[in-house]
C-alpha cells in the first residue's frame, strides 16, 4: 500500500564528494547515487565515520516514515531480498523483514531448520541457488565469522551481515548508535561501557568500532574469562570489576550472557555473575541521573539485568528495537541504490 502525494524527498548524503549533493536538477541520478564505498555491509570495520553518519542520517528520515499513519514508501519497489538465517533470531529477522516491507521491497525468509542445509547443502550452494531465483540482496546470519565476507566474493547480490559468529553485527551497532544519538545528541567524548561476555559477542566488536569511530571512549567490563586477548589494542579500556567503572560512564551497554557459557567454566554460577557483573536493582539506583542503559536483546532477566531495568526510564531496550527497523531500511535503501523520488 503506497500513498501518493507530495512529501519530503529522501535526503541523501554524499560521502566522498566534498561538495554537498546537488538538488538533482542537472542529473537526477546524482542525488541518489551516494553512498557507501562498498556494495555490501559486512562490518563496521569497513565503514568510516562519514559512511556511518550517512546511514544514521538516512535512518532518521526513515524513522519519521515509521511514525506516519501508513508507514510505507515505494523506495525499493520491485526489489527482493532474502533473509538467509542459519542461526535462530526473532528480532533481527523480523526487523529486516519489516524494513524491507516498509520500503515496498519483497522479502523471503529462509531458515536453516526447514532447508536443504539439513540435507548437507553447503553455504555456497544454498546462496547460489537462492540467488539464481533472482534476489537483489542477501541478509545473512551465520555462526561462522567471515561467512558474509565469503559469500560476498561469490554472489552478485549485495550482502548484509546480520551477525557472523562472534565477529560483527553491524546493523545492531548502527541502531545502538542511532538510539544513543537520539538520546544524547552526539557520541563525541561520551564514555560507553560494555558489560558481559566480550569474547563471544559480535555486538561488542561492532559497537566498539562504531562508537569509537563516532568519537566515544569505550570501555569493556567482564570476568577475565570473557575478555578476548589484546582487545585494549583496539582502543578500549578493560575492567574486571564493574563497580570500579560504573559511576564514570554515560552509557551502560549490557550484553547477553549466553546460556552455554554458564556450563563452560567461564564463570562459576549465575548467582555470582549477577553479583559481580549484573545490572542489579541496587546498581541501577546508584547510577548517575543522565546515564542510559542499552541491551541488544534478548535479555536474560535476573542474570545480566534485574527485572527492574525493564521499568527504568532511561533503559532504551525497546526504542532500540523500533529504531532498528529504520536503520535497516537505511541500509537496504543505500545498498540497493533505491530511488530518491519517494513520497509520503
Amino acid at each position, binding site marked *: 500500500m503506497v500513498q501518493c502525494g507530495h512529501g519530503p524527498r529522501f535526503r541523501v548524503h554524499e560521502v566522498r564528494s566534498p561538495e554537498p549533493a546537488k538538488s538533482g536538477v542537472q542529473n537526477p541520478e546524482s542525488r541518489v547515487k551516494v553512498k557507501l564505498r562498498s556494495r555490501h555491509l559486512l562490518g563496521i570495520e569497513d565503514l568510516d565515520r562519514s559512511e556511518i553518519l550517512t546511514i544514521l542520517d538516512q535512518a532518521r528520515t526513515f524513522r519519521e516514515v515509521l511514525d506516519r499513519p501508513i508507514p510505507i514508501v515505494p523506495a525499493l519497489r520491485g526489489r527482493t531480498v532474502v533473509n538467509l538465517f542459519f542461526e535462530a533470531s526473532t528480532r533481527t529477522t523480523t526487523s529486516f523483514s519489516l524494513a524491507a516491507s516498509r520500503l515496498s521491497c519483497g522479502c523471503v525468509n529462509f531458515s536453516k531448520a526447514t532447508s536443504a542445509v539439513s540435507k548437507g547443502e553447503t*553455504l555456497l550452494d544454498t546462496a547460489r541457488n537462492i540467488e539464481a531465483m533472482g534476489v537483489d540482496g542477501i541478509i545473512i546470519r*551465520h555462526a561462522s*565469522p567471515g561467512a558474509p565476507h565469503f559469500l560476498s566474493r561469490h554472489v552478485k547480490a549485495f550482502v548484509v551481515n546480520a551477525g557472523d559468529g562472534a565477529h560483527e553485527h553491524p546493523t545492531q551497532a548502527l541502531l545502538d548508535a542511532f538510539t544513543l544519538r537520539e538520546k544524547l545528541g552526539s557520541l563525541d567524548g561520551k564514555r560507553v561501557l560494555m558489560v558481559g561476555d566480550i569474547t563471544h559477542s559480535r555486538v561488542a566488536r561492532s559497537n566498539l568500532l562504531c562508537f569509537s569511530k563516532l568519537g566515544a571512549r569505550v570501555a569493556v567490563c567482564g570476568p577475565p574469562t570473557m575478555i*578476548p*586477548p589484546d582487545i585494549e589494542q583496539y582502543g578500549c579500556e578493560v575492567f574486571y570489576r564493574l563497580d570500579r567503572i560504573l559511576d564514570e560512564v554515560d552509557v551502560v551497554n549490557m550484553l547477553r550472557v549466553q546460556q552455554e557459557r554458564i556450563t563452560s567454566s567461564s564463570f562459576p554460577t549465575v548467582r555470582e555473575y549477577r553479583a559481580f557483573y549484573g545490572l542489579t536493582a541496587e546498581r541501577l539506583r546508584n547510577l548517575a541521573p543522565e546515564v542510559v542503559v542499552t541491551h541488544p536483546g534478548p535479555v536474560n532477566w535476573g542474570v545480566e539485568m534485574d527485572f527492574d531495568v525493564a521499568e527504568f526510564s532511561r533503559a532504551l531496550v525497546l526504542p532500540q528495537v523500533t529504531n532498528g527497523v529504520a536503520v535497516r531500511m537505511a541500509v537496504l535503501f543505500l545498498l540497493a541504490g533505491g530511488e530518491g523520488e519517494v513520497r509520503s
Partner: protein
Amino acid sequence: MQSAEVTKRILLTGGTVIDPQKGSMRRADVLVVGGRVEKVETGIPAAGAEIVDCRGKHIAPGFVDMHCHLREPGREDEETIASGTAAALAGGFTRVCPMPNTEPAIDTEAQVRFEIRRAAEAGFARLHPIGCCTKGRQGKELAEIGSMVGAGAVGFSDDGSPVADPQVLRRTLEYCKAFDVPVISHCEIRELAEGVANEGLVSTRLGLKAGPDVAESAQAARDVLLAEFTQGRLHIAHVSARSTVDVIRWAKARGVQVTAETCPHYFTLTEEALADFDTNCKVNPPLRAEGDRRAVIAGLADGTIDAIATDHAPHLKGEKEAEFDAAPPGMIGLETAFSLGYEQLVLGRTLSLADYIARLAVAPRRILNLPPAAVAAGSEAELVVLDLKAEWKYTADSVRSLSRNSPFLGRTMRGRVTAVLLGNRFFRF
C-alpha cells in the same frame, strides 16, 4: 612434469656444488654415470656425456620432506602418491615422508609396503613412510612399530591426533628405542587448542574461535620431559610458537634427545594473513603473531629448529571454498618450500645458503637415519640444480599437486629448482 629421461652418462658443467654437511661451496663439474656420481672436480672432459650447462647455478643434495600428507590411501581425489611425489620432485625433494593420517591410517607393515610400492611405481620422489604410534591413531594400543620399521617406516607419529595419554607416549618413546626411530609429536593440547586461529590480536578482531600458543608449547614441554625421562628420541613437528622454540632450546641445553622442524608458512606468514578470512591460510597449528614468526626464524638460525618440512596438506577447491570454520585446515607446500625459505632465510640474511640447504637436506636424513646427503664421487646420484637468480610467478596452472590450496598463488618467488637427478633419472622443470 617433464618426463624422466633415463641417462647413462651425464655431465653437469660449470655449477657451484654445495656441501651442506661441511658448509662449503666450490665450483666443480659433476659427472654421473649409470646413476652414480663418478667425479666431482673442475674441467671434466665431456667424453660422450650429455652435457647440462650449470653455469650460474648451484648443485645441492636432494631435499627430504619429513612431514607431508599425500592422502593415499583414502583421499585420492585430493592427492595421490604419484601426484604428490611428482610435486615433491619439482620442489627439489627427492625423498618424502608422508604422515600416516590416511584412511585407513598407516599402522601395519602391509600398509607401509603399499606406500613404498606406489611411490616406486610412480617413479618420482622416493617415499619413507611415517607409521602410527598407536593402532588407528587412537592413542591407546601401540601399533606394530618394529614390523613397520622392518618394512621401511622411518618415524612414528599419530600426527593430528597427538598422543594425549602420557603413559602411552612414555611407552612409545621407550619402545621406539629398540629400533632407533624418532617419535614425531604434533604438539597440541586439544582442550586448549579448540578453535581455527591463533588466540590473539587477529582472533579478537575477527571473532574467530582461537587457541593460544600454549596449547602447543605446554604439550612440547611435557613431551620433552618424557623424552628426557625415557631417554627416547623425540621430534617436534611444525613448530609455530615462540614458547615452543624456548621449550626446545631449554631441552636441548639439558641434553634431551629432541629435534624439531618448522614449515615455510610459519616463518613467512602471520595471523594477519587471515584478515580476509582466506581459508588457504587456515592451517593447524595456526599462523601466529609476528613475534612467533621471528622466534621461529631465530630458532632456525641457532639450530634449535633442525629441519624445514612442508606439512603439505592438499584439499580440494570445493572444500576450501567455504566459510572459515567449515574449511579443512592445511595448505600445499612441496613446490614452494625452497623458494619461500630462500627468500625469507637466505635473502633475509638469517642463514647462509649452505646452512639453509642443510635444514632441507641434512637434518631430516640425520633425524630419520637416512643415508647422508652428499654430492660426492661414489655416491648414488641424488641432486638438485638450483637457479637462485630466477624470479618466477607461482600460478595455479603450474601446480603439480592435485590440489591448489595455497595462499602463495600469484606470488613472485625468488630462486627455483630447475632440475633433479635421482639415480639414472633426470627431471627438468
